């Protein structure tokens, strides 16, 4: 018996390897840019001439504005997508590193002083934008492996929501099988416990699953559960199965919502920052420039 070598032809397209290479390039560029900006700022700051420092801050302000606008171009890329304007992964990498350089530039432009109320708010929103962006970066790297480990099969958020709704409906149907007391047990205890934030916190903090906790729940309710008739007992077991599924869906949904939700926060802070920046630039030009 002889085995031939497995056919080798070219990998058709790979985004992962290329993305890593591009990221390395941007990282080097960002470090060099921040170093150059820092050196420039420190050198000008030590200079006795106030005019020179003033001119530097103005320049840094313009550079920062241009960089911030370039950073924001990612949202345009998302909207004019698919027209051969470069890989999205490259755009995202550029967005991250240009954003970091832009933030440094604007902080140097401010001289790390809050100034008046407008510039204080502007700095606060710039900080929030940077923090939310970095948070998003961290989330995009850390959460997918967590989600992958949790899910049996990858599911989209819409599917999770609909399956969860079906399971909750199933639990309600099982609850309606028995007496009002049984209904209360399933609806008020089991359903609420399944969907509670404290349960979710326990899951993420201690990795304690509902399957592990259900025996305790059963023990607490042992007397009452022993009094159930066969039909109610079967309904309770089904309700427990639904509870386990709902619990799992909740855990996955939370991660998927975080994966999407941080972006909303990032967009709100960025939009506010740009609005404030527009006012800041206008006032600076009006009072110090073209008037």
């Amino acid at each position, binding site marked *: 018996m002889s085995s*031939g070598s497995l056919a*080798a032809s070219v990998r058709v*397209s790979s985004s*992962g390897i290329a*993305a890593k290479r591009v990221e390395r390039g941007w990282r080097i560029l960002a470090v060099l840019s921040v170093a150059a900006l820092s050196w420039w700022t420190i050198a000008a700051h030590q200079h006795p001439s106030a005019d020179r420092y003033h001119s530097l801050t103005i320049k840094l302000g313009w550079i920062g504005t241009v960089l911030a606008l370039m950073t924001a171009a990612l949202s345009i890329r998302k909207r004019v997508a*698919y027209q051969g304007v470069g890989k999205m992964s490259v755009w995202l990498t550029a967005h991250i590193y240009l954003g970091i350089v832009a933030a440094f530039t604007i902080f140097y432009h401010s001289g790390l002083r809050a100034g008046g109320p407008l510039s204080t708010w502007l700095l606060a929103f710039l900080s929030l934008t940077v923090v939310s962006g970095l948070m998003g970066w961290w989330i995009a790297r850390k959460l997918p492996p967590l989600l992958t480990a949790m899910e049996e099969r*990858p599911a*989209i958020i819409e599917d999770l929501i609909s399956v969860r709704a079906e399971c909750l409906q199933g639990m309600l149907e099982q609850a309606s099988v028995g007496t009002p007391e049984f209904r209360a047990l399933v609806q008020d205890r089991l359903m609420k416990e399944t969907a509670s934030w404290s349960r979710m916190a326990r899951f993420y903090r201690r990795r304690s699953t509902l399957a592990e906790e259900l025996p305790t729940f059963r023990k607490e309710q042992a007397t009452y559960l022993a009094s159930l008739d066969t039909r109610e007992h079967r309904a309770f077991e089904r309700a427990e199965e639904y509870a386990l599924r709902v619990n799992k869906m909740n855990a996955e949904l939370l991660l998927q919502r975080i994966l999407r939700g941080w972006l909303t926060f990032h967009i709100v802070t960025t939009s506010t920052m740009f609005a404030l920046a527009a006012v800041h630039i206008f006032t600076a030009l009006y009072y110090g420039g073209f008037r």
Partner: protein
Amino acid sequence: MREQELTFEILDVLRSMDLFKGKDPDELIEWLGAAPFEGGAECVLRRFAPGDRLIIEGSFGNSFFVLTRGTVIVSLGSATLATLGPGSFFGEMTLISGLPRNATVAALEQCEAIEVTRRSFEQWMKKPGPFRTLMDHTYIERGLANHLRTIPDFADIDPGVVRELVKKVRLRIFSKDEYVVQEGAPADSFYLIRDGYVRVTKAMAGGEERTVAYLKDGSYFGERGLLHEELRNASIIAMGKVEVIQVMKGDFLALVQGEKKFADRFAVAERRQAEKPSTKASSSLGFVGEVVERGLIKATSALVIHLDACTRCGNCVKACAELHDGISRLTRHGMLFEAPVRDSPTALERLLVTTSCMHCLDPECMIGCPTGAITRDVNGEVIIQDSCIGCGNCARRCPYGNISMAEVQSEKELAKQRTGAPVIGGYLKFWKTAENEPMMHEVESNNQTAVVRRVAVKCDLCQDYRHNHGCVHNCPYGAIERMDAGAYLQEVRGRG
């Protein structure tokens, strides 16, 4: 092919060929000259200048050629295999096997050749007669000669021996899960795998059947039983459509006795096999085994999501839908694999091979398309052309469920139908029967009547767009990629 193009010269050439034996000029005109869907072929008379390449080695083709004037040269790499003159034919190997062209054919002088499409070729092959008989024989002859050349142990076999062998061997096709060889059965033949994958299994204590190896095209088996007069020591099971060349015991032993070098080579191979560590169980064949077992190995361009990097943003699906009139050609469902991580061979990551066309090496979907709409281009990309009538044959044939039927609404289609434009109108005249009437119907949409055309849709690798692969291009995290399963496996094996 227009009737006036079928000159007496061409008809004389064709009538001299064994391929069209017994056909009078009228029959030939009917075969070659009639319009599509009327039993005739979609043939085109093509002219080639000296140096023009009719077939390129390694490319995928959809046609078969009959040379009617001039001479062509057949070459493999830098070696010349043959020179063919009028009345020769070539290009049938790819159409039968689905594999890339295995030689280059170039014009030596001004040439004329009739190009026959895959659809017509398949129709001709369905009818018993000299065409099919000769084609089957040629396929074995050329296939065996080319195939032996690719196997190192047989590469130096004497062409005369091959010619003799061709007369005796049988080409056998097995379907999925069919036994090629049964463990414990008497050894009666030697086999060469021409196309496909087989699983080698052994019965363990307790009756459990365990996979111990996988073999692919270019491999051979069955020699041990014949040389040592033993019973089969393992079963060989087809993992999909498998083509094998069967050499019967007597012919094999005559070959080995005639050429001593083969006996020596088999002995070396046997020693090498014996020195290998004990056979592995299927569970330890791990990722490689799973890729072969689940058919992913056939993929030349599988769409793979690295789940540990995927944020489930859905940009890939959105991009695909945006590029294809709102109908995404991929869903984020499919086969899950635990694969070794690229930078760390000991760690595993989860891969999702999405429900999206894998552009198989040997696409089953292309078999029996009534209009020849599903085809593959020279790069091997399987594409569905506008002539799709929505019969669903390809979708049913795809073993991975990667082709779906969609209803395409468009005013353009309505206009085409009204004017009887040739693109689809011609086909509709023939195909609009009571049975397939629902394929095209009108629906009320936003108070406007739009024509809904049922068509097969699948990933076309975004070939109409300059950047290619919308899904890969629009993933912000670089989590999705297209990969050739064979190359990927080799990479994984290389990493140990």
